[in-house]
């Protein structure tokens, strides 16, 4: 590892340890690292936005003679009017376009993936003659009871309340599985950072001694 790389990796290692120091308590090192990441991310994000969005999607097409790109450019500029109380209304067409197009894309997609596909996959044959048929009964009961939990037009009392309670238990089982899976991923991230620190300090030791 060269000297320059040693210095930059040293700064990275120092910042990693500064952030982890907050596990003990708030301290100047954590404060410094926190303010640094907020400031750097704002500047970095601005540059990413310029080079990945503004330049290829507005400036370059306009330079190439595709002048109709000025329309979305003006719509984007009008969004800045939101910061003025007097001219806020100018941002409404842009906001309407963004929300309308977002909803227009998202609604059929969500309906397709989260309703129709799930519905066709959950319409399963039931019975007691085989284990798959028994698990199908469990699946259907759990799906129906989970849906009953999110029914807001009736109080959760009586039999319906019992079904809704079973539904929330079903949801909690699913959340527990999701939690375990994500914790495994986070531990993997921690392991990667620990390996980075180990490798850096061993290289630093070799370089110095």
């Amino acid at each position, binding site marked *: 590892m060269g000297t320059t790389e040693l210095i930059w990796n040293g700064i990275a290692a120092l910042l990693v340890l500064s*952030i982890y120091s*907050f596990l003990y*308590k*708030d301290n100047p090192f954590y*404060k410094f*690292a*926190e303010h640094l*990441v*907020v400031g750097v*991310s*704002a500047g970095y*994000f601005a540059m990413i936005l310029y080079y990945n969005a503004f330049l290829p999607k507005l400036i370059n097409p306009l330079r190439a003679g595709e002048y109709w790109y000025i329309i979305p450019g003006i719509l984007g500029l009008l969004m800045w009017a*939101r*910061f003025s109380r007097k001219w*806020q209304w100018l941002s*409404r067409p842009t*906001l*309407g*376009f*963004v*929300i*309308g*197009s*977002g*909803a*227009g*894309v998202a*609604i*059929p997609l969500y*309906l*397709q993936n989260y*309703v*129709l*596909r799930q*519905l*066709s996959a*959950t*319409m*399963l*044959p*039931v*019975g007691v003659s085989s284990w798959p048929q028994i698990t199908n009964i469990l699946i*259907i009961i759990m*799906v*129906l009871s989970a*849906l*009953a939990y*999110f*029914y*807001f*037009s*009736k109080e*959760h009392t009586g039999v319906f309340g019992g079904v809704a309670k079973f539904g929330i238990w079903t*949801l909690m089982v699913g*959340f*527990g599985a*999701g*939690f375990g899976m*994500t914790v495994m991923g*986070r531990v993997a991230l921690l392991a990667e950072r620990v390996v980075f620190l180990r490798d850096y300090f061993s290289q630093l030791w070799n370089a110095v001694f």
Partner: protein
Amino acid sequence: MKSVLARADSISGRILGGVSLFLLTLLISPALSLAQEDLSHSWFNTHRVNMLVFLLVFFALIIYFIERAKKGKSLFIRRIAGLDAIEEAVGRATEMGRPVLFISGIEDVDNIQTVASMIILGNVAKMVAQYDTPLFVPICRPFVVPVAEERVKEGYASAGRPDAYNRDNVRYISDEQFAYAAGVNGIMLRDRPAANLMFGSFYAESLMLAETGFLTGAIQVAGTANIHQLPFFIVACDYTIIGEELFATSAYLSREAKLLGSLKGSDLAKAIIMGLLALGAVLETAGITGFTRWFFIE
């Protein structure tokens, strides 16, 4: 309040316009892309008829109930248990003389969860204004800042305390996800709010925020429709509003016709789906597979 509702009114009008435009586009575009050599036979994608039927039924139900709500008909919604938790959290912060922290998620104002969060923020602002408790609102997206400022200001005004509104308490932190989380963690550790209310769209930073709040001893109430983040809120928070309950909470608090009508319409759609599911299972068991195949998307 009226200006925010007027804005929501124009937004929803545009949503309907956008939906109809893009519905048509999405129905047509797969057919166009698959059959470019013979466009004259591809103006309607027959493989998506089931989606069209579902969309039309959903829209009809929602519009019907919105119209009923506009006419002043009473639409019953059960009280969400999380509402009591919000009041308890604000009350605890008032007793301890410490601020309330309201986190509205990391998505922009065009995200429906952020819209729901802003409605809840207005009601929380009214509560804290009545008790004279400080309210901090760190924001991730710049365009959410004016909306949040207006909601907080209206909350203070409706509580009769417009003088107590402090614009500096609604502050922009950073667009970057983990920079925002680091900034909010810093606020939690330094200002030590007694109540953390987290409503909106969250991603990987959810556990960071919830765990830091837990470490500070704050009472935490969270709500999100991002199902992958719900487990973290459930383990780290005192109360969690799950998924669609977030939208039900905002509808219950605002009592606005469009929100109530949408909720009732989706409730009836849910009941229809449950019925179809049960019917489909019975038919599949009887060996009749045509019904299930109708719902299949290629």
